């Protein structure tokens, strides 16, 4: 069964295509995306009564945050550590790690993002169904951390995707990640469907 892969795809074409994607994204992401939490401040000020529908929705959403698998680097092991027995993220209903972005609610950016990886992460984020949240985990996720000066590293995930919660650390200890998740849960709790989509 002699089948050359040339018949199916051309390696050179694939590489060129990927390279073009990366360069385009790189050119368009020179500025950070604004953090999607302007409403949070407003909400707290307006002190809108959270309706019972909101209450149920927010409860269900914050109680069942399914993270998508996005484990580029070091922080992945603290993320896994947080979901392993010692810290057991599943207590918060986060034990279902979805490989498919369609079913996930939460993108935890566990690791350094390189420009080569950036289109994939952007695509992963785009594929996630609303409502979706992003936690920037670790120094690399926030600002690029120790690799900020590198030629191939994206200085922070918020160049590519809007980030909801930043968890500092390198890598953050599982407790810190859990705290970040707790912060996200509080943030979700302040949502209202009447303002959704704004």
């Amino acid at each position, binding site marked *: *069964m002699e*089948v*050359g*892969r040339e*018949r*199916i*795809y051309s*390696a050179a074409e*694939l590489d060129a295509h990927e390279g073009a994607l990366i360069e385009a994204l790189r050119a368009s992401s020179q500025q950070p995306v604004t953090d999607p939490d302007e409403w949070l401040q407003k909400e707290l000020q307006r002190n809108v009564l959270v309706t019972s529908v909101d209450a149920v929705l927010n409860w269900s959403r914050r109680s069942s945050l399914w993270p998508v*698998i*996005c*484990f*580029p*680097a*070091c922080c*992945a*092991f*603290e993320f*896994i*550590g947080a979901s*392993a*027995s*010692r810290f057991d993220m599943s207590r918060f209903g986060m034990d279902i*790690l979805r*490989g498919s972005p369609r079913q996930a609610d939460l993108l935890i950016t566990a*690791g*350094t993002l*390189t420009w*080569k*990886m950036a289109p*994939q*992460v952007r695509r*992963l984020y785009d594929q996630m169904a609303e409502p979706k949240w992003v936690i920037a985990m670790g120094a690399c996720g926030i600002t690029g951390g*120790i*690799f900020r*000066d*590198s*030629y*191939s*590293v994206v200085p922070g995930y918020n160049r590519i995707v809007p980030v909801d919660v930043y968890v500092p650390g*390198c*890598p953050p*200890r599982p407790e810190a990640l859990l705290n970040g998740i707790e912060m996200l849960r509080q943030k979700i709790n302040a949502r209202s469907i009447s303002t959704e989509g704004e």
Partner: protein
Amino acid sequence: MALKTEPFVLNIGPLHPSTHGVFRLLATLDGEVVIDIEPIIGYLHRGIEKLAEEREYQKDIPLCDRLDYVAAMSHSMAYVMAVEKLLGISVPERAEYIRVIMVELQRIASHLLAVGSIANEIGTFFTPFMYMFRERERILDLFDMVCGQRLLYNYMRFGGVSHDLPEEFIPALAKFINQMPGYIDEYDQLLAENEILLVRTKGIGVLPPELAINCSVSGPTLRASGVARDIRRCDPYSIYDRFEFDIPTRTAGDCYDRYRQRIEEMRQSLRIIRQAVEQLPQGKVNSQVPIRVRPPQGDVFVHVEAPRGELGFYLVSDGSEKPYRFHIRAPSLINLTPLREMIIGWKLADAIVIFGSIDIIMGEIDR
């Protein structure tokens, strides 16, 4: 009569549950059978070599931790040894012992993760993985105690280590090394004879020794193919010549052997730690080397046995406070060389297991 089939390309990764990070495997499948693969890497290329050349020697220690974030101790130790060789300084006895204890603990932690991942890729629902993480957490606790971090330790320094062991360390370590063999037995009970695991790993992804040597494969992957090359034995560094331990090897070179090999190495590491704790001398833990150093001109190559294989640091100094050239011989990268030969012809599910059994860490591959 053969069916007329048409191959198709499956893009595995870069974000995939079993790629140990961001690895992309462009697999050409004929049904379930992999007929061609092309590994594409670089999704975690952070330019560590360049960054290290732009930074001073001591600031590169945190970078070295981040090379192989599962075995940070081994990597920073190798780097520190290379700089020490350049500087021509010696390390106090106690520091050498502490280093050996740390590195061997790190090897256990890393192998635990590797074996757990293999089990995961075979399809257990995280159970062995969780058990191994449970014991890994204990090792992390010990590291945490010593240097205050769980993953990236920044513990090695030129001429020693940054801190002495805290007083509660040795009792906790003793307890750990007494309990750990029991846990390893439990893993064996859970996995070693499991028929499903056997049919999924035995005879699968065989790496013949000749190919392994030709492809410069190293570490447990090489030893599982029957080649007894371990830097701790064939080019002893630090104080490994003082300990009694075996270099376990296996013969078949299949996935099962690579898994068993790591279990055996954990037992040997425990043996080394036990001896090191017994012999641990008192004294200083570092030899007061200034923070910034300027090694004399020259080049140096230091290789150590990291959990994933032969880890080498090639440093060139031009006499300034920054390394002129900082090259890492990353075992994971080179262990990928025979991947195509190992995978082709097996099913998609096997491909994942074979890939997992090599045990790679993308941070080290892409650097």
